[in-house]
């Protein structure tokens, strides 16, 4: 059976499972549509929350970010799990109403596995979510997400078990990545081996300390308090029956999230070593430069390396044999070489663009000067103890290695069996579908429950509201698909913005609402505006006003950042401004009325929570 058929079979089977569950658990009432009735236990709720939380970004991108960022990108591991501690301690037991929706995201990267275009892949994915989300509501989504969690966690951990066993001799990746490196006999730690190989090639060591502790601290804090302020996560804690269940639900959610998050650094570091040693085969069981770099002839003849050409087609991996020696030399170009190569490319482009009748002599002289300057750099820079010039190397020839292929191509890089590759495809889809469905539910309930029933037509019947919820869900899916077909193209910035803004606005307001009887309505509103505006302005200064390219007023580089604080790290500062403003305004305005103070007192005590859930 070929890989394509295998992919179709595994993905098809997983879709059939989701449909079956959605049909079995279809919603019969608005209570079931919005909140799965009251019948969801903490373990099921925790698993569904985990699937909802771990989007395609967690599944695909995080390990790649860690692989190339090393210790610095531990912020994602601590940030996206530590937020659940805040949820469990500070929010879940006290929440009674939910916020508004988040911008839905949907990914079409999986098109490659189905061998269809990205557009077709997106349309297929939307149709699947449409079919089960519109009929199932929260109840259907919750139980479908349980199945999706199981598919995605298997897809993530099974390849990791295989790879950990082969690289470290330990089947548990969490132990393997701090254990010893097996192929050389086990007398070197795996992390030391990885550091050695990547520093040989001029990259920063994987475990190298951060160059900016303040920024790392703030980014972690931003992700943590942002997690505790994201509406589609918070909404989960309304689906459990009791306050004690809400506390433990956050714990169960973290159990299922931790299964993936503790494996992620092992996946990242092992994939990094595997892809590096693929291009420098000598590094597998000896010194990095003991054998020549991978040859193009090998790429085209070795059946274990067909993935290189396959992923090259997607543009996520790219290489060019710049010096024509038939080998692909992969290394980190030192800064002077990057600059010299760019100057040469610019001069060459200027010469090529000159009109036929122009005087080309000065342009040709510029190219010659740039070539001389570049050759001088090559004569200075070294790789493996010899100058680049002596080895005939003119630059790094593995020009693109996208973060995402560290998970998606991981089983292929490690030459694992075909069914594991198919499983990863199904797992990535499960992650994308479960998150999309959760976000869509938050949108549709905001429209049908808050807008239609709450404001426009309060006397709407139970049946009518259920219909309205289904129609608005259908519209939300169509809208999300349309946005996905023509993506705005700033996913990473939106993630930074979403967490930073949630950290600076929603989290402080929730905290003050629960823990303070002093802060007034005016204080909370002004505080939120200050948190929102300060964070948004700081992000826009470096990333462009409303992300419009070219409108940024400062370059987005560490040197230009205020005190080295990156835009993604500003959330906690916005939150502090929010708190301080709210406090100051509250001292100047009238104390909250007695009924509000009584409400805050009653929120603090679990007894009577059942009554508050009927709305």
């Amino acid at each position, binding site marked *: 059976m070929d890989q394509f058929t295998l992919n179709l079979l595994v993905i098809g089977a997983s879709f059939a499972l989701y449909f079956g569950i959605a049909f079995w658990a279809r919603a019969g009432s608005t209570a079931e549509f919005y909140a799965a009735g009251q019948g969801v236990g903490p373990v099921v709720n925790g698993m569904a929350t985990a699937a909802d939380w771990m989007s395609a970004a967690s599944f695909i991108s995080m390990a790649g970010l*860690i692989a190339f960022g090393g*210790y610095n990108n*531990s912020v994602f*591991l*601590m940030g996206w*799990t*530590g937020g*659940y*501690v*805040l949820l*469990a*301690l*500070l929010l879940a*037991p006290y929440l009674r109403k939910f916020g508004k929706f988040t911008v839905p995201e949907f990914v079409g990267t999986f098109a490659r596995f189905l061998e269809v275009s990205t557009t077709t892949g997106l349309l297929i994915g939307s149709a699947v979510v449409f079919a089960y989300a519109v009929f199932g509501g929260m109840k259907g989504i919750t139980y479908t997400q349980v199945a999706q969690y199981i598919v995605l966690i298997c897809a993530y951990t099974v390849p990791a078990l295989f790879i950990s066993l082969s690289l470290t001799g330990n089947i548990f990746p*969490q*132990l393997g*990545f*701090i*254990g*010893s490196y097996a192929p050389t006999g086990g007398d070197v*730690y*795996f*992390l*030391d081996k990885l550091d050695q190989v990547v520093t040989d090639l001029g990259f920063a060591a994987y*475990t190298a*300390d*951060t160059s900016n*502790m303040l920024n*790392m*601290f703030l980014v*972690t*804090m931003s992700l943590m308090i942002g997690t505790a302020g994201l509406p589609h996560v918070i909404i989960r804690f309304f689906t459990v029956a*009791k*306050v*004690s269940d809400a*506390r*433990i639900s*956050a*714990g169960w959610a*973290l*159990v299922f999230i*931790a299964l993936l*998050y*503790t494996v992620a*650094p092992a996946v990242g570091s092992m994939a990094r070593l595997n892809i590096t040693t693929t291009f420098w085969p000598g590094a597998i069981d000896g010194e990095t430069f003991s054998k020549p770099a991978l040859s193009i002839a090998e790429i085209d003849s070795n059946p274990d390396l067909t993935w290189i050409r396959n992923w090259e087609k997607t543009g996520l991996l790219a290489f060019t044999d710049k010096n024509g020696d038939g080998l692909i030399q992969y290394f980190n170009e030192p800064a002077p070489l990057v600059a010299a190569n760019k100057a040469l490319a610019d001069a060459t482009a200027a010469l090529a663009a000159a009109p036929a009748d122009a005087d080309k002599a000065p342009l040709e002289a510029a190219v010659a000067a740039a070539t001389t300057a570049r050759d001088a750099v090559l004569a200075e820079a070294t790789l493996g103890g010899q100058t680049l010039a002596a080895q005939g190397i003119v630059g790094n020839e593995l020009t693109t290695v996208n973060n995402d292929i560290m998970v998606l191509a991981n089983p292929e890089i490690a030459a694992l069996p075909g069914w594991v590759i198919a499983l990863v495809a199904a797992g990535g889809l499960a992650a994308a579908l479960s998150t999309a469905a959760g976000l869509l539910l938050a949108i549709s309930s905001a429209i049908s429950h808050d807008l239609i029933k709450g404001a426009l037509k309060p006397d709407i019947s139970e049946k009518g509201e259920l219909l309205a919820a289904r129609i608005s869900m259908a519209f939300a899916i169509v809208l999300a698909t349309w946005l996905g077909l023509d993506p705005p193209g700033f996913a990473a910035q939106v993630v930074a913005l979403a967490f930073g803004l949630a950290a600076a606005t929603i989290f402080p307001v929730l905290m003050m609402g629960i823990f303070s009887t002093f802060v007034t309505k005016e204080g909370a509103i002004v505080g939120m505006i200050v948190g929102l505006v300060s964070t948004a302005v700081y992000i826009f200064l470096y990333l462009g006003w409303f992300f419009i390219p070219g409108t940024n007023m400062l370059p987005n580089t560490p040197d230009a950042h205020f005190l080295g604080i990156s835009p993604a790290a500003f959330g906690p500062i916005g939150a502090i401004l929010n708190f301080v403003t709210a406090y100051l305004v509250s001292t100047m305005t009238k104390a909250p009325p007695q009924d509000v103070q009584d409400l805050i*007192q*009653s929120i*603090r*005590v*679990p*007894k*009577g*929570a*059942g009554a508050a859930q009927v709305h």
Partner: protein
Amino acid sequence: MADKSSSSAYWAANLRVIFISLAIWFICSFGIGILLRPALSGISIGGADIGFWFAQNGSIYVFLVLIFVYAAKMNKIDRDHGVEE
């Protein structure tokens, strides 16, 4: 709802648990994982130094234990003050 004096005692007990839990939460992630990493670089866990391990794996395990201990403690406090559901 319980009477006022018992509810403020309940709230004080609740805040104490939250405060201790948040201190542990902060020390393992921001403390050992980030701020103290250079100072603790001599201590290793397998092939990693303790700060690196806490940043990539250890904090997550502590978070897990923390939430379950917190939930158990709070359920007991709920019962002791007669405010459980």
